[in-house]
């Protein structure tokens, strides 16, 4: 399994970079072309979620992402923020909409607290086309 890891300070500008890298690795991993738009959206949502969680509690620690190319294409996004106390109505709407999008477009989705310390891990996986992998 080949893995590309990315760490970035919790700023919205870097989410686009994560999307671009994630889609490039997905294409190389053999994710079918007709699923790449959903992969791009899901990676963006998961990374934006992590950035927002860090920003709401004023945490400057990096957000970490791993893109793994194996029997399936696996994306993991880690944040280290504790639960936020209060968010605005528009922020809550975005949180709810983001959760709806992730649940709808990622069949293999898990969101869980980190085993040690505050924070969460979002794990998403997509099937890969075996022929594409063998042919590269």
């Amino acid at each position: 399994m080949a893995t590309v890891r990315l760490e970035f300070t919790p700023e919205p500008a870097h989410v686009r970079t994560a999307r671009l890298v994630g889609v490039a690795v997905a294409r190389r991993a053999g994710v079918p072309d007709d699923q790449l738009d959903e992969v791009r959206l899901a990676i963006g949502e998961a990374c934006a979620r992590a950035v927002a969680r860090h920003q709401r509690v004023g945490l400057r620690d990096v957000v970490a992402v791993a893109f793994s190319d194996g029997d399936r294409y696996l994306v993991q996004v880690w944040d280290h923020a504790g639960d936020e106390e209060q968010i605005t109505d528009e922020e809550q709407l975005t949180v709810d909409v983001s959760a709806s999008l992730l649940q709808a477009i990622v069949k293999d989705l898990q969101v869980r607290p980190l085993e040690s310390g505050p924070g969460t891990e979002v794990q998403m996986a997509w099937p890969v086309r075996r022929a594409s992998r063998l042919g590269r």
Partner: protein
Amino acid sequence: MELSLATRVVAAHTVLEVGGEVDVYTAPKLRERIAELLDSGVTAVVVDLARVDFMDSTGLGVLVGGLRKARTAGATFGVVCSRESLLKIFRITALDQVLPLYPSVDAATAS
């Protein structure tokens, strides 16, 4: 692709043409522009997403925020979208039931 914003007036509607990517980084600029239009007294806003390549939940939140602000100001607010990849996220989130969506600027400005 960076966000692009331009306005034009069509049949007494102010059409805000949006292009590029509307995401967690660029959406605040769209929010500001919509607020500026409504604060300046515009009474009919149409947000045209025809040249938008990508939109995430932050962009959707800004559009809903724009609709709410427009209603508070007594203005109308419509969204033009015909691209299937964007329509899909409106449907998934059920925001197609909340936001007035139109297939073209003509349809939006005729309403």
